[in-house]
C-alpha cells in the first residue's frame, strides 16, 4: 500500500556515450501535480519518456503505482517485460507531447476513440459517446469531425489531452505541452490542464510556464545537467530558490 504514484530511484540514462540522466530521485504522490522545470538539454523530457518506457533506463528503477516500469523482478533478477505487458502498463499512463502527434488521417473523434476501441476493445457506440464527452470537456464538442490539419495548435493539443484521457489513465505526463503553441493559444491548453489537476489527476508536467507551475504545481522540481538540483513546493523553489543554478535559470525566464 503506497500513495506514491511515481517513484524514481537513482535513474541513469545514456544515449551512446552521452549521459543524459545522472541519478534522478523523484517521488510524485497520488493526486499531486509535479512540475519539472529546467533549461533545454537538462534531461527533463528524457526522464518523462522513461516513466512510460518510451526510453529504456540504463540503471536505477522507476515505479508507477508500485509497479516496476518495463521489468519484472523475480528472485532478485530483472526480466524484461514482453511488448504486450509494456503496452498494458502504458495504458495507465497518458502522455501529451510537445508537437501534439495527433493522427492526421483521423478526425478528432476518431483520434480519441482509437485506443479505447483497439486496445481495450470497447464497443464502438460506447466509445464514441465517451469520446464525444471528452471532447466536450476540453471545449471542442463542435470539432468532432474536423481533421487535425483543420484545427489550430491549441485545439489540437486539447484533442491530444482528450485522447490520452480516453484510456482512463491514473497518471498523466505532459512533455512541454504549450511550447509549440502561439502565445495566444497557450491559455486554453493550460486551462484544460488546471481543470484536470482540480479533478485530482496525478500529473507530471515538463514546462516552461513558470506561472502554471506556481499556481497549479504541488511540487516543483528543477533539473539541470541530468540531475535534480532542487525540489520542493512552488513557494520554496520559485519564490525563494537556494541553489545558484536555480536562481540563474529563474532570473532568465521570469
Amino acid at each position, binding site marked *: 500500500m503506497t500513495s506514491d504514484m511515481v517513484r524514481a530511484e537513482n535513474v541513469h540514462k545514456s544515449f551512446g556515450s552521452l549521459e543524459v540522466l545522472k541519478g534522478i530521485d523523484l517521488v510524485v504522490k497520488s493526486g499531486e501535480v509535479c512540475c519539472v522545470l529546467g533549461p533545454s538539454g537538462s534531461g527533463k523530457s528524457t526522464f518523462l519518456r522513461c516513466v512510460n518506457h518510451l526510453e529504456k533506463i540504463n540503471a536505477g528503477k522507476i515505479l508507477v503505482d508500485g509497479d516496476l516500469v518495463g521489468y519484472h523482478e523475480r528472485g532478485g533478477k530483472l526480466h524484461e517485460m514482453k511488448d504486450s505487458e509494456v503496452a498494458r502498463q502504458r495504458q495507465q499512463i497518458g502522455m501529451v507531447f510537445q508537437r501534439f502527434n495527433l493522427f492526421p488521417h483521423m478526425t478528432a473523434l476518431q483520434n480519441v476513440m482509437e485506443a479505447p476501441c483497439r*486496445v481495450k476493445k470497447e464497443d464502438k457506440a460506447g466509445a464514441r459517446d465517451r469520446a464525444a464527452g471528452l471532447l466536450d470537456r476540453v471545449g471542442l464538442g463542435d470539432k468532432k469531425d474536423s481533421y487535425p*490539419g483543420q484545427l489550430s495548435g491549441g485545439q489540437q493539443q486539447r484533442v491530444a489531452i482528450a485522447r490520452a484521457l480516453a484510456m482512463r489513465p491514473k497518471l498523466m505526463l505532459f512533455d512541454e505541452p504549450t511550447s509549440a503553441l502561439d502565445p495566444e493559444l497557450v491559455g486554453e491548453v493550460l486551462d484544460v490542464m488546471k481543470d484536470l489537476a482540480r479533478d485530482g489527476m496525478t500529473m507530471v508536467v515538463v514546462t516552461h510556464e513558470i506561472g502554471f507551475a506556481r499556481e497549479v504545481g504541488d511540487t516543483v522540481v528543477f533539473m539541470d545537467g541530468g540531475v535534480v538540483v532542487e525540489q520542493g513546493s512552488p513557494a520554496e523553489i520559485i519564490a525563494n530558490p537556494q541553489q545558484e543554478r536555480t536562481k540563474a535559470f529563474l532570473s532568465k525566464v521570469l
Partner: protein
Amino acid sequence: MTDQTPTERARPEPIKAVPVRRPGRWVLIAVLAVLTAMFLHVLFTNDQFRWKFIFLSYEPGKRGVLFTEPVLEGLRGTLLLTVTSMVIGVVLGVIIAIMRLSDNWILRGVAFLYTWFFRAVPRLVLCVLFGNLNILWSRVGFGLPFDHQIGRLFGIDDLNAQFYSIKATDLLAGFVAGMLALGLSEAAYMAEIVRAGIQSVDPGQGEAATALGLSRGQVLRRVVLPQAMRVIVPPTGNEVIAMVKDTSLVAFVPVTFELFFQLNAIKARTFVVFPVLVAAVIWYLVICTVLMIGQYFLERHFGKGYGSTGRARQRLRDIEVEQGGRIVAEGGGST
C-alpha cells in the same frame, strides 16, 4: 463623402492592369498546334494504319485484330499476370520493408540481400532463369526440409518426408515461372518504396500510438502504414503500370498466355506489321488509363486529412485569426 471618419477611407477601384505579354509561350503553342495537326493528318489519311484491320475485321469472317479471340485471351493473361505478380510484390515488399527496418541485424541483412539481388538482375534474365529452374529439381514440394540428409543421419536411406509434391516441370514453367520472376523482382522495388513511405512518417506518430498502449502491429497497421500510403501510392501506381508492360517479358519464359505474344503471332501469320503494333499500343493505353483512374481514387482516399480543401480551410482560418476573427469561413469550419 457623407459621414466618413478620417480613419475610414473610401475603397479604391479594383486594379485593372494590362497583363504582361509572353510571346515565347504563344510561339510554343503554335508549334505544338502544327505538330498535332500533322499527327492527326497521318492518323486519318495514311492507309498503312488499316483501321478496318484493327477495329472491324482482320480476315474475312473474323473480328478486328483488337477483339479477336486469341488477343482477348492474351489480354486476360496480361491482366492476370499483372495482378498476381503485383500482389506477390506488394505483400512480400511490405514484409521485406519491415524486416529492413527491424532492430535485428540478421533480419535487416537478409532484407538487404534480397533487394540487392532482385534489383541487380534484369527482369528479362530473371524470366528466362525461372523458366529453366526445373533443371535444378525434378520435384518441388512441401515437407520436412533436408529430409534426405536427416534420414541418412539416422541411417534411413531415402527418407521422404514430403506431404505434397509436384513435378518441377509442371510447376516451374510457363505462367507460374513468369509470375514468380515478375513478382519476386517487384517485391524488391516495392520494399524500397514501402520503406521510404514508413520512414516518411513522423516518428512522433508511432510514439504517440505506443504511449496509448497500442501493440507494435496495431501501431503499424492503424497509424504508420495509413500515413505512409500517401507516399507509397504514387510510385506504386508507376510500378503497376510498368508491370503491365513488363508482362510482355514472360514471352521468354516462355509463356504464350499474354497480349503482346498473341499480337505478334498474328503479325507473323498475316504479315501485317504496323496495324498489329498499333493494336498493341491501343490495348496498353486502355489498360493504363483505367489504372490511372484507379490511382486517382486511391490517392484521394489516403489523402484524408491532408486534402487541399482542408488545407485551404486552414489557411482561411489562419487569416481569420490574424484578422481578429472578422472573416467568417463558410460553415465556421465545423461540419
